[in-house]
Protein backbone atom coordinates (compact mmCIF):
# COMPACT_ATOMS: atom_id res chain seq x y z
CA UNK A 1 0.00 0.00 0.00
CA UNK A 2 1.37 3.38 -0.98
CA UNK A 3 2.39 5.61 1.87
CA UNK A 4 1.70 9.27 2.43
CA UNK A 5 4.34 11.83 1.50
CA UNK A 6 4.70 12.80 5.18
CA UNK A 7 5.97 9.26 5.91
CA UNK A 8 8.60 9.50 3.18
CA UNK A 9 9.82 12.86 4.50
CA UNK A 10 9.98 11.38 7.99
CA UNK A 11 12.01 8.40 6.75
CA UNK A 12 14.41 10.60 4.80
CA UNK A 13 14.90 12.80 7.86
CA UNK A 14 15.60 9.79 10.09
CA UNK A 15 18.09 8.46 7.54
CA UNK A 16 19.75 11.88 7.28
CA UNK A 17 20.14 12.08 11.06
CA UNK A 18 21.19 8.50 11.74
CA UNK A 19 23.24 7.58 8.69
CA UNK A 20 24.56 10.96 7.63
CA UNK A 21 25.10 12.14 11.22
CA UNK A 22 23.48 15.42 10.35
CA UNK A 23 21.24 17.87 12.17
CA UNK A 24 17.74 19.28 11.74
CA UNK A 25 17.19 22.90 12.79
CA UNK A 26 13.99 24.86 13.19
CA UNK A 27 11.58 26.49 15.60
CA UNK A 28 8.89 24.61 17.53
CA UNK A 29 9.96 21.33 15.96
CA UNK A 30 9.42 19.10 18.93
CA UNK A 31 6.05 20.58 19.71
CA UNK A 32 2.52 19.63 18.78
CA UNK A 33 2.22 17.80 15.49
CA UNK A 34 5.93 17.35 14.78
CA UNK A 35 5.77 19.55 11.70
CA UNK A 36 2.53 18.02 10.43
CA UNK A 37 3.88 14.55 11.06
CA UNK A 38 6.89 14.95 8.78
CA UNK A 39 9.47 14.88 11.57
CA UNK A 40 10.47 11.77 13.57
CA UNK A 41 10.01 12.12 17.31
CA UNK A 42 13.66 12.86 18.07
CA UNK A 43 15.37 15.47 20.21
CA UNK A 44 18.63 17.45 20.53
CA UNK A 45 20.67 14.41 21.47
CA UNK A 46 19.56 12.87 18.17
CA UNK A 47 20.33 16.01 16.16
CA UNK A 48 16.95 17.75 16.18
CA UNK A 49 17.83 21.26 17.30
CA UNK A 50 15.38 23.87 18.51
CA UNK A 51 16.54 27.27 17.31
CA UNK A 52 15.90 30.45 19.29
CA UNK A 53 12.76 32.35 18.35
CA UNK A 54 14.97 34.94 16.68
CA UNK A 55 14.28 34.18 13.02
CA UNK A 56 17.19 36.04 11.41
CA UNK A 57 19.77 34.62 13.82
CA UNK A 58 18.35 31.13 13.26
CA UNK A 59 19.13 31.24 9.54
CA UNK A 60 22.67 32.35 10.39
CA UNK A 61 23.18 29.51 12.86
CA UNK A 62 22.10 27.01 10.21
CA UNK A 63 24.47 28.64 7.73
CA UNK A 64 27.31 28.05 10.19
CA UNK A 65 26.35 24.40 10.43
CA UNK A 66 26.38 24.12 6.63
CA UNK A 67 29.74 25.83 6.51
CA UNK A 68 31.37 23.09 8.59
CA UNK A 69 29.72 20.55 6.26
CA UNK A 70 27.11 19.02 8.56
CA UNK A 71 24.59 19.24 5.68
CA UNK A 72 21.79 20.40 7.97
CA UNK A 73 18.08 20.30 7.24
CA UNK A 74 16.46 23.65 8.02
CA UNK A 75 12.70 23.69 8.52
CA UNK A 76 10.89 26.96 7.85
CA UNK A 77 7.34 26.36 9.02
CA UNK A 78 5.77 29.08 6.89
CA UNK A 79 7.32 30.36 3.71
CA UNK A 80 6.25 33.89 4.61
CA UNK A 81 9.10 33.75 7.14
CA UNK A 82 11.60 33.52 4.28
CA UNK A 83 11.95 37.28 4.57
CA UNK A 84 13.63 36.80 7.96
CA UNK A 85 14.88 33.22 7.88
CA UNK A 86 16.69 33.39 4.55
CA UNK A 87 18.73 36.58 5.00
CA UNK A 88 22.03 34.85 5.72
CA UNK A 89 21.12 31.81 3.64
CA UNK A 90 20.98 33.84 0.42
CA UNK A 91 23.70 36.30 1.29
CA UNK A 92 26.22 33.85 2.76
CA UNK A 93 25.42 30.16 2.32
CA UNK A 94 24.47 30.55 -1.34
CA UNK A 95 27.56 32.60 -2.16
CA UNK A 96 30.15 30.74 -0.07
CA UNK A 97 31.15 28.20 -2.71
CA UNK A 98 31.68 30.88 -5.33
CA UNK A 99 33.48 33.47 -3.19
CA UNK A 100 35.53 31.30 -0.82
CA UNK A 101 35.41 27.89 -2.54
CA UNK A 102 33.84 26.56 0.67
CA UNK A 103 30.50 24.85 -0.01
CA UNK A 104 27.70 25.37 2.46
CA UNK A 105 25.13 22.66 1.64
CA UNK A 106 21.78 23.10 3.39
CA UNK A 107 18.49 21.29 2.74
CA UNK A 108 15.80 23.87 3.44
CA UNK A 109 12.24 22.67 3.88
CA UNK A 110 10.06 25.73 3.35
CA UNK A 111 6.42 24.90 4.00
CA UNK A 112 3.57 26.74 2.32
CA UNK A 113 -0.08 26.51 3.19
CA UNK A 114 -3.33 28.17 2.22
CA UNK A 115 -6.78 28.85 3.45
CA UNK A 116 -7.86 30.98 6.44
CA UNK A 117 -4.28 31.57 7.46
CA UNK A 118 -4.25 35.29 6.89
CA UNK A 119 -1.97 37.96 5.52
CA UNK A 120 1.40 36.73 6.80
CA UNK A 121 1.87 33.00 6.74
CA UNK A 122 0.10 31.84 3.61
CA UNK A 123 1.19 30.83 0.12
CA UNK A 124 4.60 30.19 -1.41
CA UNK A 125 7.29 32.82 -1.16
CA UNK A 126 10.11 31.45 -3.24
CA UNK A 127 10.02 34.35 -5.69
CA UNK A 128 11.85 36.55 -3.18
CA UNK A 129 14.90 34.29 -3.18
CA UNK A 130 14.63 32.91 -6.71
CA UNK A 131 16.87 35.55 -8.27
CA UNK A 132 19.83 34.91 -5.96
CA UNK A 133 22.78 32.97 -7.35
CA UNK A 134 23.81 29.68 -5.75
CA UNK A 135 20.36 28.45 -4.67
CA UNK A 136 18.54 25.49 -6.15
CA UNK A 137 14.75 25.33 -5.80
CA UNK A 138 12.50 22.28 -6.07
CA UNK A 139 8.85 21.73 -5.35
CA UNK A 140 8.19 17.99 -4.94
CA UNK A 141 4.61 16.95 -4.22
CA UNK A 142 4.93 13.13 -4.32
CA UNK A 143 7.00 10.39 -2.68
CA UNK A 144 9.21 9.64 -5.67
CA UNK A 145 9.77 13.30 -6.45
CA UNK A 146 10.85 13.96 -2.86
CA UNK A 147 13.25 10.99 -2.81
CA UNK A 148 14.76 12.11 -6.12
CA UNK A 149 15.39 15.63 -4.83
CA UNK A 150 16.99 14.31 -1.61
CA UNK A 151 19.31 12.01 -3.58
CA UNK A 152 20.31 14.97 -5.73
CA UNK A 153 21.10 16.97 -2.58
CA UNK A 154 23.34 14.23 -1.20
CA UNK A 155 25.40 14.23 -4.40
CA UNK A 156 25.53 18.03 -4.48
CA UNK A 157 27.16 20.80 -2.46
CA UNK A 158 24.67 23.62 -3.03
CA UNK A 159 21.87 25.11 -0.98
CA UNK A 160 18.61 23.31 -1.82
CA UNK A 161 15.29 25.03 -1.12
CA UNK A 162 12.46 22.51 -1.05
CA UNK A 163 9.18 24.32 -1.51
CA UNK A 164 6.69 22.04 0.23
CA UNK A 165 2.96 22.37 0.77
CA UNK A 166 1.05 21.14 3.82
CA UNK A 167 -1.80 19.83 1.70
CA UNK A 168 0.59 17.54 -0.20
CA UNK A 169 1.65 15.61 2.92
CA UNK A 170 -1.28 13.20 2.64
CA UNK A 171 -0.62 12.55 -1.04
CA UNK A 172 0.06 8.92 -2.01
CA UNK A 173 -0.07 9.24 -5.79
CA UNK A 174 2.59 9.98 -8.38
CA UNK A 175 2.11 12.49 -11.17
CA UNK A 176 2.47 11.75 -14.86
CA UNK A 177 3.23 14.26 -17.60
CA UNK A 178 1.36 14.24 -20.86
CA UNK A 179 3.75 15.74 -23.39
CA UNK A 180 2.35 15.34 -26.90
CA UNK A 181 2.34 17.31 -30.12
CA UNK A 182 -0.75 19.14 -31.43
CA UNK A 183 -2.50 19.68 -28.08
CA UNK A 184 -5.03 22.48 -27.73
CA UNK A 185 -3.39 23.74 -24.56
CA UNK A 186 -0.66 22.63 -22.16
CA UNK A 187 -0.94 23.11 -18.41
CA UNK A 188 2.29 23.65 -16.46
CA UNK A 189 1.43 23.70 -12.76
CA UNK A 190 3.67 24.22 -9.74
CA UNK A 191 3.25 23.16 -6.10
CA UNK A 192 -0.29 22.65 -4.79
CA UNK A 193 -1.86 23.84 -8.06
CA UNK A 194 -0.68 20.56 -9.61
CA UNK A 195 -3.55 18.76 -7.89
CA UNK A 196 -6.09 21.27 -9.24
CA UNK A 197 -4.51 21.18 -12.70
CA UNK A 198 -4.94 17.39 -12.83
CA UNK A 199 -8.65 17.78 -12.02
CA UNK A 200 -9.02 20.62 -14.52
CA UNK A 201 -7.36 18.54 -17.22
CA UNK A 202 -9.87 15.72 -16.82
CA UNK A 203 -12.83 18.11 -16.98
CA UNK A 204 -11.43 19.93 -20.02
CA UNK A 205 -10.80 16.63 -21.80
CA UNK A 206 -14.38 15.56 -21.08
CA UNK A 207 -15.42 18.74 -22.90
CA UNK A 208 -13.48 17.61 -25.99
CA UNK A 209 -10.27 19.57 -25.55
CA UNK A 210 -6.83 18.03 -26.08
CA UNK A 211 -4.89 18.98 -22.93
CA UNK A 212 -1.23 18.31 -22.21
CA UNK A 213 0.28 18.62 -18.73
CA UNK A 214 3.87 19.18 -17.60
CA UNK A 215 4.39 19.07 -13.84
CA UNK A 216 7.12 21.44 -12.71
CA UNK A 217 9.33 20.20 -9.86
CA UNK A 218 12.79 21.53 -10.74
CA UNK A 219 12.29 25.29 -10.61
CA UNK A 220 15.88 26.46 -10.36
CA UNK A 221 17.78 25.55 -12.41
CA UNK A 222 14.84 25.48 -14.79
CA UNK A 223 15.69 23.05 -17.56
CA UNK A 224 13.36 23.06 -20.51
CA UNK A 225 13.32 19.67 -22.19
CA UNK A 226 13.29 19.46 -25.98
CA UNK A 227 10.09 17.38 -25.91
CA UNK A 228 8.38 20.23 -24.05
CA UNK A 229 9.47 22.73 -26.70
CA UNK A 230 8.12 20.53 -29.48
CA UNK A 231 4.81 20.06 -27.68
CA UNK A 232 4.41 23.76 -26.87
CA UNK A 233 5.35 24.90 -30.37
CA UNK A 234 2.72 22.67 -31.93
CA UNK A 235 0.01 23.49 -29.39
CA UNK A 236 -2.93 25.56 -30.58
CA UNK A 237 -3.24 28.02 -27.68
CA UNK A 238 0.12 27.75 -25.91
CA UNK A 239 0.55 27.24 -22.17
CA UNK A 240 -1.16 28.07 -18.88
CA UNK A 241 1.27 28.04 -15.94
CA UNK A 242 -0.14 27.99 -12.40
CA UNK A 243 1.34 28.47 -8.94
CA UNK A 244 0.47 29.46 -5.37
CA UNK A 245 2.98 32.34 -5.34
CA UNK A 246 2.09 35.77 -6.70
CA UNK A 247 1.90 35.90 -10.49
CA UNK A 248 4.44 38.74 -10.70
CA UNK A 249 7.28 36.58 -9.44
CA UNK A 250 8.72 33.24 -10.37
CA UNK A 251 5.72 32.48 -12.62
CA UNK A 252 6.42 35.32 -15.03
CA UNK A 253 10.15 34.59 -14.95
CA UNK A 254 9.59 30.96 -15.96
CA UNK A 255 6.93 31.96 -18.49
CA UNK A 256 9.37 34.35 -20.12
CA UNK A 257 12.05 31.65 -20.31
CA UNK A 258 9.55 29.35 -22.04
CA UNK A 259 8.40 32.09 -24.36
CA UNK A 260 12.01 32.75 -25.42
CA UNK A 261 12.43 29.09 -26.38
CA UNK A 262 9.05 28.52 -28.08
CA UNK A 263 7.78 31.91 -29.25
CA UNK A 264 4.33 30.83 -28.03
CA UNK A 265 2.04 32.68 -25.65
CA UNK A 266 2.67 31.52 -22.08
CA UNK A 267 -0.16 32.57 -19.78
CA UNK A 268 0.20 32.67 -16.00
CA UNK A 269 -2.24 32.20 -13.17
CA UNK A 270 -1.02 32.64 -9.61
CA UNK A 271 -2.22 34.45 -6.54
CA UNK A 272 -4.04 37.71 -7.10
CA UNK A 273 -2.08 40.89 -6.46
CA UNK A 274 -3.69 41.47 -3.07
CA UNK A 275 -3.13 40.65 0.60
CA UNK A 276 -4.88 37.59 1.94
CA UNK A 277 -7.27 37.99 4.85
CA UNK A 278 -8.22 35.40 7.43
CA UNK A 279 -11.89 35.13 6.49
CA UNK A 280 -12.73 33.10 3.41
CA UNK A 281 -14.46 36.09 1.83
CA UNK A 282 -11.20 38.07 1.85
CA UNK A 283 -8.72 35.21 1.38
CA UNK A 284 -6.31 34.95 -1.56
CA UNK A 285 -6.24 31.32 -2.61
CA UNK A 286 -4.27 29.51 -5.31
CA UNK A 287 -6.19 28.77 -8.49
CA UNK A 288 -8.48 25.77 -8.13
CA UNK A 289 -9.76 23.64 -11.03
CA UNK A 290 -12.71 25.98 -11.66
CA UNK A 291 -10.44 29.00 -12.01
CA UNK A 292 -8.02 27.07 -14.22
CA UNK A 293 -10.86 25.93 -16.52
CA UNK A 294 -12.27 29.45 -16.66
CA UNK A 295 -8.84 30.77 -17.67
CA UNK A 296 -8.36 28.11 -20.32
CA UNK A 297 -11.65 29.13 -21.98
CA UNK A 298 -10.66 32.79 -21.70
CA UNK A 299 -7.38 32.00 -23.49
CA UNK A 300 -9.23 30.09 -26.23
CA UNK A 301 -11.75 32.90 -26.65
CA UNK A 302 -9.04 35.55 -27.01
Amino acid at each position, binding site marked *: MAKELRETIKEITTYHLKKKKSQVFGQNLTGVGWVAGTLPKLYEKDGVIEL*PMADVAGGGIVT*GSGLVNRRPIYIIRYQGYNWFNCTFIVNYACKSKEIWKIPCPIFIRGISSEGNIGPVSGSSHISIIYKMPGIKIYSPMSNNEYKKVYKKFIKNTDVFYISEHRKSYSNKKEFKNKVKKNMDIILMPISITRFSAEKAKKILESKGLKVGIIHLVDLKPFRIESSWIKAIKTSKYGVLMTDNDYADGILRVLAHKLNEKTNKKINVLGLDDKTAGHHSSVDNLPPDEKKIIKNVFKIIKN
Partner: protein
Amino acid sequence: MQKKFILEVFKKASLCRHFENEVFKRIKSDKIKFPVYLSAGQEYVPASIAQIIKEKKIKPLLFGQHRGHSIYLSFGGDVIKLINELKGKKSGCTYGMGGSLSIHSPKINMYGHDGFMGSNACIGAGACFSSKKPTIIFIGDAAIEEDYVLATLSWVSKKKLPILFVVEDNNYAVLTKKDERRDWKAKDVAKAFRVDSFDVKDDPKLIYKLLKKNIFKKPMLINIHTNRLFWHSGAGVDTQKVFDRHLMLKKIIGKKANIIDQNIKNKINNLWQKN
Protein backbone atom coordinates in the same frame (compact mmCIF):
# COMPACT_ATOMS: atom_id res chain seq x y z
CA MET B 1 57.22 35.38 30.56
CA GLN B 2 55.18 38.54 30.20
CA LYS B 3 58.07 40.40 28.52
CA LYS B 4 58.34 37.68 25.91
CA PHE B 5 54.57 37.76 25.38
CA ILE B 6 54.55 41.54 24.92
CA LEU B 7 57.41 41.35 22.45
CA GLU B 8 55.65 38.69 20.36
CA VAL B 9 52.44 40.73 20.37
CA PHE B 10 54.46 43.78 19.36
CA LYS B 11 55.90 41.88 16.37
CA LYS B 12 52.42 40.86 15.18
CA ALA B 13 51.07 44.36 15.69
CA SER B 14 54.02 45.84 13.85
CA LEU B 15 53.31 43.57 10.88
CA CYS B 16 49.67 44.70 10.85
CA ARG B 17 50.57 48.38 11.23
CA HIS B 18 53.09 48.50 8.40
CA PHE B 19 50.86 46.42 6.16
CA GLU B 20 48.01 48.91 6.66
CA ASN B 21 50.35 51.88 6.16
CA GLU B 22 51.38 50.45 2.80
CA VAL B 23 47.73 49.95 1.83
CA PHE B 24 46.99 53.51 2.95
CA LYS B 25 49.68 54.87 0.63
CA ARG B 26 48.22 52.93 -2.29
CA ILE B 27 44.71 54.18 -1.69
CA LYS B 28 46.00 57.74 -1.45
CA SER B 29 47.83 57.38 -4.75
CA ASP B 30 44.77 55.76 -6.40
CA LYS B 31 46.52 52.45 -7.00
CA ILE B 32 43.77 50.74 -4.98
CA LYS B 33 40.39 52.06 -6.06
CA PHE B 34 37.79 49.87 -4.33
CA PRO B 35 36.55 50.25 -0.72
CA VAL B 36 39.21 49.23 1.81
CA TYR B 37 38.75 48.92 5.57
CA LEU B 38 41.95 49.65 7.47
CA SER B 39 42.53 48.43 11.00
CA ALA B 40 45.60 50.44 11.95
CA GLY B 41 45.37 51.46 15.60
CA GLN B 42 43.26 48.40 16.49
CA GLU B 43 45.92 45.76 15.88
CA TYR B 44 46.63 45.02 19.55
CA VAL B 45 43.27 43.31 19.87
CA PRO B 46 43.85 40.45 17.38
CA ALA B 47 47.62 40.45 17.98
CA SER B 48 47.22 39.82 21.71
CA ILE B 49 44.53 37.15 21.28
CA ALA B 50 46.46 35.41 18.49
CA GLN B 51 49.55 35.21 20.73
CA ILE B 52 47.54 33.72 23.61
CA ILE B 53 46.04 31.14 21.23
CA LYS B 54 49.50 30.33 19.89
CA GLU B 55 50.86 29.74 23.37
CA LYS B 56 47.92 27.52 24.21
CA LYS B 57 48.40 25.60 20.95
CA ILE B 58 44.75 25.94 19.97
CA LYS B 59 43.57 26.47 16.40
CA PRO B 60 40.09 27.98 16.70
CA LEU B 61 37.61 28.84 13.96
CA LEU B 62 37.88 32.57 13.23
CA PHE B 63 34.98 34.73 12.13
CA GLY B 64 35.88 38.34 11.44
CA GLN B 65 33.98 41.12 9.75
CA HIS B 66 34.85 43.58 7.00
CA ARG B 67 37.81 45.08 8.88
CA GLY B 68 39.81 41.89 8.94
CA HIS B 69 43.37 42.56 7.72
CA SER B 70 44.85 42.55 11.22
CA ILE B 71 42.95 39.41 12.23
CA TYR B 72 44.22 37.64 9.12
CA LEU B 73 47.83 38.77 9.66
CA SER B 74 47.94 38.26 13.44
CA PHE B 75 46.76 34.66 13.21
CA GLY B 76 49.28 33.77 10.52
CA GLY B 77 47.53 34.44 7.20
CA ASP B 78 49.83 34.58 4.17
CA VAL B 79 50.98 38.20 3.64
CA ILE B 80 51.65 37.82 -0.07
CA LYS B 81 48.21 36.34 -0.68
CA LEU B 82 46.62 39.33 1.07
CA ILE B 83 48.66 41.74 -1.02
CA ASN B 84 47.54 39.89 -4.14
CA GLU B 85 43.93 39.99 -2.98
CA LEU B 86 44.10 43.76 -2.59
CA LYS B 87 45.61 43.97 -6.05
CA GLY B 88 42.63 42.00 -7.39
CA LYS B 89 44.67 38.98 -8.46
CA LYS B 90 43.36 35.43 -8.69
CA SER B 91 46.33 34.37 -6.56
CA GLY B 92 44.86 36.44 -3.72
CA CYS B 93 43.71 34.86 -0.48
CA THR B 94 40.11 35.05 -1.72
CA TYR B 95 40.89 34.58 -5.42
CA GLY B 96 40.25 38.24 -6.18
CA MET B 97 36.59 37.80 -5.16
CA GLY B 98 36.84 39.20 -1.64
CA GLY B 99 38.67 42.50 -1.94
CA SER B 100 39.31 43.98 1.49
CA LEU B 101 36.10 43.02 3.27
CA SER B 102 35.63 39.32 2.53
CA ILE B 103 39.11 37.90 3.08
CA HIS B 104 39.53 34.37 4.34
CA SER B 105 42.17 31.70 4.90
CA PRO B 106 41.52 27.96 5.28
CA LYS B 107 45.12 27.66 6.57
CA ILE B 108 44.24 29.58 9.75
CA ASN B 109 40.52 28.55 9.85
CA MET B 110 39.44 32.08 9.04
CA TYR B 111 36.05 32.28 7.36
CA GLY B 112 35.11 35.17 5.08
CA HIS B 113 32.54 37.86 5.77
CA ASP B 114 29.54 38.70 3.61
CA GLY B 115 29.29 42.38 4.44
CA PHE B 116 26.21 42.18 6.69
CA MET B 117 27.35 43.58 10.03
CA GLY B 118 27.27 40.95 12.74
CA SER B 119 26.25 38.08 10.46
CA ASN B 120 29.46 36.37 11.57
CA ALA B 121 28.06 36.13 15.12
CA CYS B 122 25.22 33.78 14.12
CA ILE B 123 27.23 31.96 11.47
CA GLY B 124 30.19 31.47 13.81
CA ALA B 125 27.87 30.23 16.55
CA GLY B 126 26.35 27.68 14.16
CA ALA B 127 29.77 26.53 13.02
CA CYS B 128 30.89 26.15 16.63
CA PHE B 129 27.71 24.29 17.61
CA SER B 130 27.94 21.83 14.73
CA SER B 131 31.71 21.26 14.83
CA LYS B 132 32.26 21.59 18.60
CA LYS B 133 35.46 23.49 17.79
CA PRO B 134 36.56 26.54 19.80
CA THR B 135 35.56 29.69 17.94
CA ILE B 136 36.43 33.38 18.02
CA ILE B 137 33.95 35.92 16.68
CA PHE B 138 35.21 39.47 16.10
CA ILE B 139 32.58 42.17 15.90
CA GLY B 140 32.53 45.92 16.42
CA ASP B 141 30.71 48.15 18.89
CA ALA B 142 28.12 48.80 16.14
CA ALA B 143 27.52 45.18 15.16
CA ILE B 144 26.67 44.21 18.73
CA GLU B 145 23.59 46.40 18.38
CA GLU B 146 22.23 44.11 15.65
CA ASP B 147 19.23 42.18 16.97
CA TYR B 148 20.51 38.89 15.59
CA VAL B 149 23.84 39.32 17.41
CA LEU B 150 22.03 39.74 20.72
CA ALA B 151 19.85 36.70 19.96
CA THR B 152 23.01 34.72 19.21
CA LEU B 153 24.56 35.69 22.55
CA SER B 154 21.49 34.33 24.27
CA TRP B 155 21.62 31.05 22.33
CA VAL B 156 25.34 30.35 22.81
CA SER B 157 24.88 30.96 26.52
CA LYS B 158 22.07 28.39 26.63
CA LYS B 159 24.18 25.90 24.65
CA LYS B 160 27.36 26.70 26.65
CA LEU B 161 29.48 26.86 23.51
CA PRO B 162 33.27 27.40 23.57
CA ILE B 163 33.05 30.82 21.93
CA LEU B 164 34.92 34.03 22.54
CA PHE B 165 33.13 37.17 21.32
CA VAL B 166 35.56 40.01 20.84
CA VAL B 167 34.03 43.47 20.53
CA GLU B 168 36.53 45.86 18.97
CA ASP B 169 35.12 49.02 20.50
CA ASN B 170 36.43 52.21 18.92
CA ASN B 171 33.32 54.12 20.04
CA TYR B 172 32.14 54.83 16.50
CA ALA B 173 29.70 53.39 13.98
CA VAL B 174 31.24 55.11 10.94
CA LEU B 175 31.13 58.58 12.57
CA THR B 176 28.26 58.16 15.03
CA LYS B 177 29.41 57.93 18.63
CA LYS B 178 28.24 55.15 20.90
CA ASP B 179 26.51 57.49 23.36
CA GLU B 180 24.34 58.81 20.53
CA ARG B 181 23.16 55.25 19.74
CA ARG B 182 22.63 53.50 23.06
CA ASP B 183 22.76 53.74 26.83
CA TRP B 184 24.01 50.25 27.56
CA LYS B 185 27.35 48.49 27.63
CA ALA B 186 28.13 45.30 25.74
CA LYS B 187 29.49 43.84 28.95
CA ASP B 188 26.21 44.40 30.83
CA VAL B 189 24.02 42.99 28.07
CA ALA B 190 26.20 39.89 27.73
CA LYS B 191 26.09 39.46 31.48
CA ALA B 192 22.29 39.60 31.36
CA PHE B 193 22.47 36.64 28.99
CA ARG B 194 24.74 34.89 31.54
CA VAL B 195 27.77 35.17 29.30
CA ASP B 196 31.01 35.91 31.18
CA SER B 197 31.88 39.41 30.04
CA PHE B 198 34.62 41.96 30.50
CA ASP B 199 35.43 45.52 29.54
CA VAL B 200 39.13 46.33 29.02
CA LYS B 201 41.57 48.56 27.19
CA ASP B 202 43.59 47.10 24.30
CA ASP B 203 46.54 46.58 26.62
CA PRO B 204 48.07 43.16 25.82
CA LYS B 205 48.82 42.55 29.51
CA LEU B 206 45.18 43.02 30.50
CA ILE B 207 43.92 40.87 27.64
CA TYR B 208 46.41 38.17 28.57
CA LYS B 209 45.32 38.25 32.21
CA LEU B 210 41.66 37.86 31.27
CA LEU B 211 41.93 35.17 28.65
CA LYS B 212 44.92 33.04 29.55
CA LYS B 213 43.06 30.74 31.93
CA ASN B 214 39.43 31.10 30.92
CA ILE B 215 39.31 31.10 27.15
CA PHE B 216 36.95 28.54 25.55
CA LYS B 217 35.83 27.06 28.86
CA LYS B 218 32.41 28.62 28.30
CA PRO B 219 30.94 31.49 26.26
CA MET B 220 32.75 34.73 26.91
CA LEU B 221 32.56 38.30 25.65
CA ILE B 222 35.39 40.75 25.90
CA ASN B 223 34.73 44.38 24.95
CA ILE B 224 38.07 45.94 24.14
CA HIS B 225 38.41 49.71 23.91
CA THR B 226 40.63 50.68 21.04
CA ASN B 227 41.28 53.48 18.56
CA ARG B 228 41.24 53.42 14.80
CA LEU B 229 43.74 55.71 13.12
CA PHE B 230 42.09 55.95 9.72
CA TRP B 231 38.58 56.61 8.53
CA HIS B 232 35.86 53.97 8.36
CA SER B 233 36.67 53.28 4.72
CA GLY B 234 39.48 54.34 2.42
CA ALA B 235 42.39 56.64 3.23
CA GLY B 236 41.64 59.51 5.52
CA VAL B 237 42.79 60.75 8.92
CA ASP B 238 40.82 62.87 11.35
CA THR B 239 42.39 66.02 12.69
CA GLN B 240 41.61 64.91 16.22
CA LYS B 241 44.62 63.13 17.67
CA VAL B 242 43.97 59.61 18.96
CA PHE B 243 45.93 57.45 21.33
CA ASP B 244 48.33 55.11 19.50
CA ARG B 245 49.28 52.01 21.50
CA HIS B 246 51.90 50.96 19.00
CA LEU B 247 53.90 54.15 19.47
CA MET B 248 53.52 53.87 23.22
CA LEU B 249 54.76 50.27 23.34
CA LYS B 250 57.62 51.14 21.04
CA LYS B 251 58.74 53.76 23.54
CA ILE B 252 58.36 51.37 26.48
CA ILE B 253 60.23 48.47 24.87
CA GLY B 254 62.91 50.80 23.55
CA LYS B 255 65.74 50.17 21.12
CA LYS B 256 64.85 46.54 20.45
CA ALA B 257 61.35 47.56 19.38
CA ASN B 258 62.72 50.19 17.02
CA ILE B 259 64.89 47.62 15.28
CA ILE B 260 62.05 45.06 15.01
CA ASP B 261 59.64 47.70 13.76
CA GLN B 262 62.08 49.01 11.14
CA ASN B 263 62.86 45.49 9.89
CA ILE B 264 59.19 44.60 9.56
CA LYS B 265 58.49 47.91 7.83
CA ASN B 266 61.22 47.19 5.26
CA LYS B 267 60.04 43.62 4.78
CA ILE B 268 56.44 44.66 4.13
CA ASN B 269 57.54 47.46 1.83
CA ASN B 270 59.63 44.98 -0.19
CA LEU B 271 56.76 42.50 -0.42
CA TRP B 272 54.43 45.17 -1.77
CA GLN B 273 57.08 46.25 -4.30
CA LYS B 274 57.80 42.70 -5.47
CA ASN B 275 54.25 41.35 -5.72
